[in-house]
């Protein structure tokens, strides 16, 4: 087993490009996505005026709209706004009129609802205030109003079940890091597993079988290698972002390592199952990318799984090991959960791994 295991590293040394590329891609993707904070971080809204719009009103509305924290309303020519929307560079454009507005879209996107709501709120409040201000001394009223608003009569406080007020967190950066790292590790692990199929094709597998090695030793050598290569890739990516970019992965390193190990094991096993199911290694090549992308989408690596409402889909997501991997990683890093609370995702990943591994090896052995 040891020699089979070591051999894989020797082979990796000769052909490291695959593994290095996927590690590089992980880092590239996370830096990129986490760097700009993922979708919805800062939206630029192309804004233009109806020909009837007065200059004074334009300035007023723009100032008022730009009070938003995560939206920038940028003044552009109508043609530019229209171009941007129809080519998809902008999700929507805002047409200002004196006391009215229109939102122009090409595609109905859920994210544009946020902007629509915001603009509606600004206009309805502002129009209300204007209406009242018109009956009294506008300047005085505004000042007094602002003062009163600063002492709200009602507040909402939010806290989590565990009672810690700060734990209501949705950390975009960590979500991206976890999602992308787990996603790309699928590729590394499964493409590395193709070594087994390759050995069978070339004939070295038979050589190993007729040697005194037991079959389980040969499998174990390969599996251990694939496990480690995936494990190391995830670790390196985590370390990189912790050390270089200061991502906060929490303090429970032991639990973190355990969760990664369980996830890696589940993916290695899934890879074995896929190999058992396909006839040739070339089919693996076609299956792996689609499988990885599908798992990532369904399991919530690309977008948060919470947006999925359909029960069947939620059930499907719960069939994806990556779902539990992400769940457990977030539990450890963000919510500082200990092992007892992580028992459920961990044991599901392990169970998933054992079942897939059993089926996979069985199918492969039956074929030969």
């Amino acid at each position, binding site marked *: 087993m040891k020699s089979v295991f070591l051999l894989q590293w020797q082979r990796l040394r000769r052909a490291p490009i695959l593994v290095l590329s996927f590690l590089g891609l992980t880092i590239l993707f996370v830096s990129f996505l986490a760097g700009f904070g993922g979708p919805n971080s800062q*939206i630029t809204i192309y804004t233009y005026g109806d020909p009837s719009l007065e200059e004074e009103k334009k300035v007023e509305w723009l100032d008022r709209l730009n009070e938003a924290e995560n939206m920038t309303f940028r003044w552009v020519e109508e043609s530019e706004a229209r171009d941007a929307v129809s080519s998809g560079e902008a999700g929507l454009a805002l047409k200002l009129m004196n006391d009215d507005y229109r*939102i122009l879209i090409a595609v109905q996107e859920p994210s544009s609802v946020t902007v629509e709501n915001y603009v509606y709120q600004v206009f309805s409040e502002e129009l209300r205030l204007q209406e009242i201000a018109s009956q009294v001394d506008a300047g005085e009223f505004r000042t007094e109003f602002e003062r009163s608003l600063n002492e709200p009569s009602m507040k909402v406080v939010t806290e989590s079940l565990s009672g810690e007020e700060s734990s209501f967190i949705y950390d975009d950066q960590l979500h991206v890091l976890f999602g992308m790292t787990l996603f790309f590790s699928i590729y590394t692990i499964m493409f590395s597993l193709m070594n087994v199929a390759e050995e069978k094709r070339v004939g070295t597998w038979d050589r190993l079988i007729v040697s005194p090695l037991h079959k389980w030793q040969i499998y174990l050598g390969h599996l251990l290698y694939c496990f480690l290569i995936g494990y190391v890739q995830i670790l390196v990516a985590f370390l990189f972002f912790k050390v270089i970019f200061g991502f906060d992965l929490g303090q429970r390193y032991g639990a973190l390592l355990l969760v990664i190990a369980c996830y890696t094991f589940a993916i290695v096993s899934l890879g074995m199952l896929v190999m058992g199911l396909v006839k040739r290694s070339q089919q693996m090549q*076609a299956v792996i990318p689609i499988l990885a992308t599908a798992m990532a989408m369904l399991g919530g690596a690309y977008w948060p799984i919470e947006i999925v*409402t359909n029960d069947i889909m939620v059930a499907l997501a719960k069939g994806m090991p990556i779902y539990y991997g992400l769940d457990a990683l977030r539990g450890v890093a963000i919510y500082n959960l200990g092992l007892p609370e992580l028992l459920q995702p961990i044991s599901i990943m392990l169970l998933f791994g054992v079942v897939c591994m059993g089926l996979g090896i069985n199918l492969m052995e039956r074929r030969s």
Partner: protein
Amino acid sequence: MGNFLRKDLLVLLRDRTELMILLLMPILLIVILSFALRGILGGDTSDFHMDVAFVIEDDEEQGVIDFIEDLETMGMPPEVMMELERVVEEVKPYTMLEDLMNNESVSNMVTVEELDFSEAEEALKNEDVTAILLIPEDFTYHSLKKMLLNEGDGSELKMTVKDYSSIRTDVFLSIVNRYVNTVNFETAISQALIDLGHGDVLADRAEGEVMEAREFGGVESISAREPITSFQYYTVSMAVMFVLFVGATIASKAYVEKKQHVFNRIILSNRHPIVYLGGKMISASVISFLQLIILFLVSTLAFRTFPLDEPAFWGGIAIIAIILAICVGGFASLLTALTVKYENDALNHIFSGGIVTLLALVGGSFFPTSEMPEIIGTIGNWTPNGAALTAFLKWMQELDMTTILPYLIRIVALAAILIISSILIFPKRRSL
């Protein structure tokens, strides 16, 4: 050339499993995901539902009585008392909250259960409810004091959620926030008016006379046609991503052929080696085109994603699909050249695993590029999938060839670059 093409296509046809994977997996995935995301993407909230628990420690009636007693002890003149008592009836905070919850748009999404605190906590733990909203003791009393007399610190609603945030809790929180903001906004107006001695304006407003709502705002399509639904966007963006995988799959065949020495035999057969590349390129294009068209058709038949009765619409879709398919052929050709030259399949793995994901991200397949920095959108429109996505979307909006022509030219140019570089890279006979 025809002969090579026939061979490549035959090889693909023989391997039914792989062909099925290539053609049908994307459809399957889109169907699955469309179920998953349809609710949210289509703006359809009927699926989106949550239960919340209200823990009411406040006694509204008692609060009102206490408040009025306070007024009496303060020695307010009777007519002011009368006026205030009338206003109190209008602005009882919990009643307003209840009204909001019973409003159709909210009640469709949120079902409220009144529980005591320990029950509510249990329910939250079991995920029977999304959140607990605690209306604390003397909530009415403190709110009224602050709202009407500007005395005290006001009141606090307490929301408790599970450790994990979710879209549901976000939605509920925003509903509660909306309520609180409205209360505060209105209160601020009233107080400002009272402080400035314009009680009359306030009184008029309370009469509801000036309150006639003006119509304003609205969402319009930028083109004459209906806006593209997010479901359509999603279908197209997934299609342009999945089609890229074909390139690597076809090129991977070259690796096998090289390994099995079929390749050398082909080269020795006194045919120009470029013909071999051509065969790969065209077969990738054919498969890609079929994949795209099947995907659009199946999606239309199953979900009515696109209108079936517009030949012009489908003509344009076919043209864009052909051009994109040729570009995928270009990828297949370049990958084949690299695979044969270095006799290494890893490049195909990296392409299908990494490069495609990268292109998909930049090209707007995961989420619209409009949500990313502008530079990404610009780069994205130069990727074949991104340019094709834009072309598809523009076509669906305007059915105007001239507006999509620049994008089609980009894709063609990319295809040309890919094909030319593959020819340059492809090993010449002498060097084999």
